[in-house]
Structures are given as structure tokens and as C-alpha cells.
């Protein structure tokens, strides 16, 4: 199953790190990148996206606001909010918008586990 995944992070280093992990586990997937919420919304409106990985701490709208918007635009799309800010409050807000919370720095295992679960959810919907 070849999918399109959107990676949203204002940091190039963070996007590079996700790209490395994705290349290792899903080299055939198409990766789209955005540096902020507006770019991400523009991409999702123009192209169907299957899965999104969204940084929390970004200039402009934060990752939780973006996750809520993405869930409204594409309610079946699995979304993960990624942050080193693992405060209980942030985790609760992520759950409330229906997003998975992943702790930064992302490990290969954390990304793989999220993607495996996301693919299972997408397959169950088809």
C-alpha cells in the first residue's frame, strides 16, 4: 500500500529526521512537506493526503490547531502531533482532537508503530 504522507514542521532538521525514518521503513511512500499550518492546509486542499505528522510548537497556528483543522478537512486521516512538550495538558488536547501524540526526538520505532496503526485504520475504513 503506497501512501502520501504530509510532514509539517518549521524546522528543517526535524523534517530531515522524519524523512530519514520514512525512507528506512516506507521508501515507496510519497512525502510532502510543509513548514507551517497555512502551507499544510494548502497542500491538503490541493492533494489527497493519507497520513499527517504535525509539529506542535510552530510559529503562527500551533500543531494542535492544525491537527483540528486537518481532522475537519479529512476526518478519516490519521494525524500525529509531535512535540518534546509532553505536558499532560498537551497530551489531553491531542486526544481531544483525535490525534496521536508522539514525543520528540522521534525514534524509528515510534514512527513505525504510529504508521502501522495508521495503515490498519485506513485499511479498516476501505
Amino acid at each position, binding site marked *: 500500500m503506497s501512501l502520501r504522507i504530509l510532514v509539517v514542521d518549521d*524546522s*528543517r*532538521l*526535524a523534517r530531515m529526521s522524519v524523512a530519514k525514518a520514512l525512507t528506512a521503513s516506507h521508501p515507496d511512500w510519497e512525502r510532502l512537506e510543509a513548514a507551517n499550518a497555512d502551507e499544510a492546509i494548502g497542500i491538503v486542499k490541493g492533494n489527497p493526503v493519507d497520513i499527517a505528522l504535525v509539529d506542535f*510548537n*510552530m*510559529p503562527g497556528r500551533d500543531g494542535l490547531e492544525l491537527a483540528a483543522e486537518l481532522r475537519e478537512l479529512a476526518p478519516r486521516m490519521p494525524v500525529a502531533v509531535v*512535540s*518534546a*512538550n*509532553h*505536558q*499532560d*495538558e*498537551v497530551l489531553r488536547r491531542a486526544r481531544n482532537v483525535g490525534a496521536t501524540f508522539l514525543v*520528540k*526526538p522521534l*525514534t524509528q520505532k515510534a514512527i513505525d508503530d504510529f504508521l502501522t496503526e495508521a495503515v490498519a485504520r485506513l485499511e479498516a475504513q476501505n
Partner: protein
Amino acid sequence: MTSGVPRLNALQLDALSELVNLGVSRAAASLHEMIGHQVVLSVPNVGLVSHKQAVSMVENRDVRQFIAVRESFEGPIAGRALLIFPNANGIELVRALTGGHLTLDEIIEFEQEALAETGNIILNGCLATIANMLWCSLRTSIPEVLHGSGETLFNAGITEGTDDLVLLLYITFAVHERDITGYIALLMDTSSVISLVKLLNQFIERSAGAGELQPHA
């Protein structure tokens, strides 16, 4: 200058050191994951000091210019968190983060961005641990990269007339097999200390029971 500023007793200082230690240990584990080398931490230093003393704790005879990532935090307690390196360590850190794939020109171009993200991960991890342990919620700002002397780093963003005393939580770290040393500092204005004392007392009560609480020393 210290009138009206509550002092922390030995147990409160100990609890604060423990919280900072937990936060920074988690941050060190993150840094270790990012660069693949062991990160060694010092015992935390916690105290109410003047800005001048805070600067002198960071500066020494050999190193007077620094590069730092700063994030502000707000909530029941407010202040600034800084990840500070001697200026020369910036490039070495980016080299370690990127695994030696980039040329020196690319590293120099990338330095600012890579430091901001590294600082964001370390400082947010540290602040989030502290917030969770204190059962409070802190809002953190976007990271900002600063260059300059210790004085520049500690005084940037301070409004004139602000109380000269700060609560300084300070820890040094070193990366094995890499020439990288740095400091993590949390600065809180004295207006936050009253809230902090209350949160620390609740934390001590949860951890050790109400019988451990003592009047201020």
C-alpha cells in the same frame, strides 16, 4: 532588595533540584538519542541570585561569547529557559546532529536552524517534566537563537525596572567523545517565587506526606 521575596527552605530547594534533575535528565536522554553519544550532567545548582551573579556563573576566563537557545514560559510560574553553549561549540553540535554528512559551508548555513530545534526539544522536554511533576500547565514560546556574552543572554528580554534577583536553576552537561559542553539555565523573576513555593509544597506533600513540610528556614 530581598525584602518581600520568599526564601526557599532546604527541603523546598531539594525538591526543586530534584525536579530540575528529572527534567534535565530527560533532556539529556533526548540529546543522547539525537547525537548518539553519552551526555554527562552535573549536580544542579539552585538559588536566588542577582543577574550579575548569574552571568558570572556562566562566564569564565576562557569563554565569554556564547550561543544560546531561549524559550519563555508562562503559567502559574513564568520565566525563561536557556540552553547555552560556548560560541565555538555550535558548529560541533550541528556536526554531531547531522552525522558528518554536511560540508562546513552547509553546517554554517544550517547552524541557526539546527540549534533552534535542538534547544526546542531539550528545553520543552525539561519544562514539560517540571510542569507535569508540579501538576501545572506551562505555555512555552517559539525558540529564539541568541549570540553574545553571558550578560546579553541573561538580560535579553528583561524590562527595565524588573527586580534584579532571579531564581537560577543551573546545570552543566558534557558530551562524551565530542568537544561539547553547555549549560541549561531556568530563570524566574521573583514574582514567580511565591507561586513556585506553593507548587513545591504541594509536590512535597504528594511525594513525602504533609508531615515533611517545614516553615521557611
